[in-house]
């Protein structure tokens, strides 16, 4: 079965919008995706029909809300091959990574080492820098080669007795590189290091099975996979989460409290202090259902085709440089630079033709510096994008190049 993007588009009201009188071509999916009616409806349905707090009251509304909220954990767990105890809801990937970094950070000692890669998003870099500063641990970086792929030989050399944590992005949000997660995790295991996977760009686009990966932690956000903003996931192996201190304390995360002390609730609730984002959870569950119906493998296949077409077309544009590796080592995004034209001008001129892309450093400032650029323009694809839209992007980029080369026209 292949994916029918034109059929899927019908589910997305926003895709009917006109931008400056032109049809919207939405290619900023690595930043956030659009939402189908099914997700919007599920959120509305919660607020209109069973809005209530969860895990507390015994009234019917609360029972329904609690069931929907708990089921959402199960559905999300099912997507990645995890048990409900291993799925804690957070605000987003960033919060999930901060939770792990601040909690694991407490156990670090001076001269312990954390390994990151040169292609991390700020959210999987800055929390570790802070943990290292607090404890005197050191951060080592796995290098990337000229293709934007990890230098695995060098990374293996970094891994040693002192390595306590290896945190890495599954798919780079700038280069599109699909990192060899299994290989990295296996190498980490040998050294007894804990592995943390930033899966913000992978879980929405491919089948990710945490048991097959054998990672200790994995983080992602709902809004990059058709779900609402404000809800994300921290997956952790049960024994890891058992041994991990919560970051927030308060209601619903305790099993017992006295004036002096408290005991923590069971997993995953120990990590979900306070009234949670119930509507978000309901929306995320609807998004997961929607994606599973299409099939994660079909989604990856669809994006692969679009990306291959985009790479081919963009290569034909004079003065355009594409960053990152070739397929099959690349996910569904293409970041590029145009000679002599600032990325803000490229993205603004595309916007004026109805095409939404992202320009800038994509929250990976050190990587931009390493590549020797101020930033790049990024087109990122999802289930509702079509080959025609890729053509429109290529044509629009030709226009941008012509305009910037011949000012005044």
């Amino acid at each position: 079965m292949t994916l029918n993007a034109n059929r899927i588009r019908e589910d997305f009201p926003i895709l009917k919008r006109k931008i400056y009188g032109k049809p919207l071509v939405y290619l900023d999916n690595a930043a956030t995706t659009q939402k189908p009616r099914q997700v919007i409806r599920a959120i509305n349905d919660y607020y209109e029909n069973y809005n209530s707090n969860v895990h507390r009251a015994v009234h019917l509304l609360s029972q329904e809300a609690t069931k929907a909220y708990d089921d959402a954990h199960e559905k999300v767990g099912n997507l990645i091959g995890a048990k409900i105890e291993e799925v804690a809801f957070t605000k987003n990937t960033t919060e999930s990574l901060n939770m792990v970094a601040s909690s694991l950070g407490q156990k670090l000692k001076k001269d312990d080492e954390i390994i990151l890669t040169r292609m991390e998003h700020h959210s999987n870099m800055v929390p570790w820098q802070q943990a290292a500063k607090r404890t005197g641990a050191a951060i080592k970086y796995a290098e990337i080669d000229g293709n934007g792929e990890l230098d695995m030989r060098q990374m293996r050399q970094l891994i040693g007795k002192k390595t306590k944590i290896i945190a890495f992005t599954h798919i780079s949000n700038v280069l599109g590189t699909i990192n060899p997660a299994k290989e990295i995790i296996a190498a980490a295991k040998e050294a007894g290091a804990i592995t943390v996977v930033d899966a913000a760009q992978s879980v929405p686009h491919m089948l990710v099975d945490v048991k097959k990966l054998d990672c200790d932690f994995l983080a992602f956000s709902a809004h990059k996979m058709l779900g609402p903003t404000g809800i994300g996931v921290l997956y952790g192996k049960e024994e890891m989460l058992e041994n991990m201190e919560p970051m927030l304390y308060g209601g619903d995360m305790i099993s017992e409290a006295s004036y002096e002390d408290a005991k923590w609730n069971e997993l995953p609730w120990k990590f979900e202090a306070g009234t949670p984002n119930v509507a978000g959870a309901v929306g995320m569950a609807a998004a997961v259902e929607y994606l599973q119906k299409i099939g994660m493998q079909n989604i990856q296949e669809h994006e692969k085709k679009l990306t291959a077409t985009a790479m081919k077309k963009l290569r034909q544009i004079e003065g355009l440089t594409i960053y990152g590796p070739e397929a099959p080592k690349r996910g569904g995004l293409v970041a590029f630079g145009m000679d002599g034209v600032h990325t803000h001008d490229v993205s603004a001129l595309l916007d004026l033709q109805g095409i939404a892309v992202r320009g800038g450093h994509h929250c990976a400032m050190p990587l931009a510096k390493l590549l020797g650029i101020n930033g790049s323009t990024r087109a990122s694809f999802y289930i509702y994008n079509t080959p025609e839209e890729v053509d429109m992007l290529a044509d629009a980029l030709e226009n941008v190049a012509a305009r910037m080369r011949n000012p005044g026209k």
Partner: protein
Amino acid sequence: MKDPAEELYREEIMDHYQNPRNYGKMESPDIAYHDYNPVCGDEVEMQLKLEDGMVKEAMFTGKGCTISQAAASMLTGEVRGKGIKDAVAMTQSDMLKIIRINPGPVRVKCAMLALRALQKGIIQHEAAKAR
């Protein structure tokens, strides 16, 4: 409907971007202030010569997007002969009147980079003098 690309990238903006006015390094400026927008890497250095509390000469160097560089070019022409107090009092709306485009909430930072650099430079200069 006017083509929005024609508005934002109208000829005057493109002209100032392609052929920036007062571009280059000034010899012994009274003020030289470099500013930078980390989000997009736009940068400008504003250089001023002062006389009797007025801007006598203004020049800039920099690199970045059309709007940031065109705004810097247009500003150097605009502030010549202005009192430094008046220059410091200039607002976002003053700057947008000079460049005569509406860059929108995201790129307004590009449009404001040169003015902010100029103002920071003057304020720093005055503070040093007062010490």
